[in-house]
């Protein structure tokens, strides 16, 4: 492979479409509105991207193995409720309640993973069913009422800033960096791609497929829990509806970012860009005074566009 210019290599990357698409929209918004390109607005946008973004990072890992997790939104909601309940009703200190909540999320994820990898139930059905159970558990526990009276120290996670950066954004980027490193530089990451690329071959080269899959769903559950806790902290409430509509957007973010639904292809960078893209789009709709009802239509169109671009980009490539 010869030395190509940086630009040429950028274009060849799977993430190029989403990157340039997002920059394009940013330029348009900067020129057509006065309120887009300023620190305050951009902070809102990025923070908005973080919650679903963190969930999408875990979802990306699951998608890379060729699976899917429809329960992550409800795990986020349930963990948000459990964590806030511990603090408000049982006076558990945030420093203890948060780790317990995260552990609960990991356990929920492992349940998904074990049913999928050991019992060999299709991931779509497993996570759909368990998602329903988690959603139901939220209502049983709360009767639909929000959980209030949280200790003020809890609000730092969702509302605090470090060096002017909102905490959720920091968490999002740090987790993203860690996962990107894991995927690129560890055997665990390679094995994830291998399982998604050819599960039968993965077993024959000695990968303990069931363990890796369980671990990946655990990770997805853990990250969903993290997002749920951050969001609860952000609104200082254990809100029963938290996460209820995160399930599809987190998959959308991964797909816009170039992750393949059939597994084996995709990246964390793509998912981060995909999450930001969706937040910028939502922000743009508000700033341009378009009816918010249009948001989902536009996002749907963008997904189709992203997929079409990907098909065009890979066309002419020899098939296997």
């Amino acid at each position, binding site marked *: *492979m010869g030395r190509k210019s940086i630009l040429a290599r950028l274009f060849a990357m799977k993430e190029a479409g989403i990157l340039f698409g997002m920059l394009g929209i940013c330029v348009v918004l900067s020129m057509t509105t006065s309120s887009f390109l300023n620190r305050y607005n951009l902070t809102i946008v990025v923070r908005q991207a973080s919650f679903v973004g963190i969930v999408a990072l875990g979802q990306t890992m699951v998608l890379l193995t060729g699976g899917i997790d429809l329960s992550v939104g409800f795990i986020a909601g349930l963990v948000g409720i459990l964590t806030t309940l511990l603090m408000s009703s049982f006076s558990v200190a945030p420093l203890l309640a948060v780790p317990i909540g995260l552990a609960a999320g990991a356990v929920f994820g492992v349940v998904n993973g074990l049913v999928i990898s050991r019992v060999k139930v299709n991931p779509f059905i497993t996570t759909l069913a368990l998602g329903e159970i988690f959603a139901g558990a939220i209502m049983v526990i709360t009767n639909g009422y929000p959980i209030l009276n949280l200790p003020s120290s809890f609000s730092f996670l969702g509302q605090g800033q470090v060096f002017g950066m909102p905490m959720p954004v920091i968490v999002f980027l740090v987790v993203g960096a860690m996962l990107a*490193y894991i995927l690129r*530089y*560890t*055997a665990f990451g*390679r*094995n994830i*791609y*291998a399982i998604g*690329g*050819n599960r*039968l*071959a*993965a*077993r*024959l*080269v*000695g*990968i*303990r497929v069931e363990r890796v899959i369980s671990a990946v769903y655990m990770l997805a559950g853990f990250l969903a829990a993290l997002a749920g806790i951050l969001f609860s902290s952000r609104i200082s409430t254990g809100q029963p509806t938290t996460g209820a509509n995160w399930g599809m957007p987190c998959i959308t973010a991964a797909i816009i970012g170039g992750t393949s639904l059939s597994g*084996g*292809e995709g990246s964390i960078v793509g998912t981060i860009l995909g999450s930001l893209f969706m937040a910028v789009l939502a922000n743009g709709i508000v700033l341009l005074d378009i009816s918010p009802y249009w948001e989902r239509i536009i996002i749907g169109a963008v997904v189709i566009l992203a997929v079409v671009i990907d098909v065009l980009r890979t066309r*002419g*490539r*020899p*098939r*296997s």
Partner: protein
Amino acid sequence: MDTPFLGIRNVSKSFPGVTALEDVSLSVERGEIHALVGENGAGKSTLVNILAGLLVPDSGGVFKNGAPLPFGDPMLMLRNGIGMVPQELTLVPHLSVAENIFLGSLPTRFGTPAIDWGRAVEKARDILGRIDPEIDPRLKLGDLGMARQQLVQIARAMAFSVDVLIFDEPTSALTYRETDRLFELIHSFCDAGGAVFYISHRMEEIKRLCLTVTILRDGRLIKTDCVTNLETAQIIELMVGRETKKSGRPAVADSAGAPAALRVESLTRVGEFEDISFYLHKGEILGFAGLMGAGRTELMKCVAGDTAPDSGTIRVAAAAAPVHFGHPAAAIAGGIAYMPEERRNYGIFPVMNVAENMTIASLRAFTRHWSIDRKSEAERVEEMIGNLRIKTPSWRQAIRNLSGGNQQKVILARWLLRGCAILILDEPTRGIDVKAKREIYELLWRIRRGENASIIIVSSELQELMDVCDRIVVMHEGRLKGEIVPREGITQNDIMRVALS
């Protein structure tokens, strides 16, 4: 000049970046079995895909009895009497045999869209009667074995009363007996006035079956001649474009006294194989011959930890205690690597690159402080690419873009990197061209010499086992029947005699 029965005139076809066919002209007459040979990528498949209506040529034409045929519509080609039995079956496993035979032209009731099932089954039975009366047209296709599915594909062509049949490597999944049966069928088809194109990498078959042979190389027609006018070596030479060394095979190693690398005793998996005992000596290449369904693949999967035996023991090297693997990972840790048949489904990770495919089994060796040392990984991979002469632009290339032979070399490199003492190769050269086969054999000899590894080869090609192995054991219907030392003059019949004894 007489009008040929089927004439291909000046056909050219190119794909982005490659000329697949360049000005190819040839013709067949009724009753002729015409072999098409060439290395992978020589243009055979492109040519027959044009004939089958799957591809449209850039220029040139195909004429039947002088009349030009339309391109690009498989159904229309079938109606014009040209049918293909493709290498990979293109039928629908969930549908019945009868449905598959008439797919696209199921008989209907009184001109309504309602399918006349009674008539479909009856007609199917009628056609199958000429091919294999034991196939029930009401069975689900997927429940039939590979060979029978292929026969259904032939029945499909016959349902359209074709008089030109194209076979693309039809025997690669067939047993010897099934192959004989297929050849009989082909002969009776030609006796009835049909013409056949026959693609195969197996020279013995071509010699046995075909009247004429056309050799393609790099999309060009090199020569068309009577099969009897050409020696096998000449054909191969014309295919490869240079003189090939005849053999280069090292002497058969007599390793009877060598220590054991693997000892299998009374291994049984009910319904797959029974009471199998054998030794693999250090530095030996042991072949497993037998018909399809003899239980060889099942045995190897068990030895390699993919399945668990019902009874019996496996011992590695001089160890006294038997091993219980339970997972391929344990077998690999114990030094046994398994390279499965059907490379594409079980061997490669198509979207991953050459390096990732090569190191996937030995990532631990490249891991320092929790992360893969990508620099040393790349170095080792480069070294392997050079050593095994793997043809790839770089290690960054996605493995699916490599030819079958080079993919197989990458998989071989995977286990050399892992340092497994026992390599089990299941049909290692299926679908690989002559030159690449040779290279893989040479690699195996080198590995045996240099790496002190022991090798088991399962192959349906007797010639391959004769060329490569030090010792051949024969399996039949799940049992081990006997042993043969390869030497001049051993034929298929000897193997069959041992198998059936």
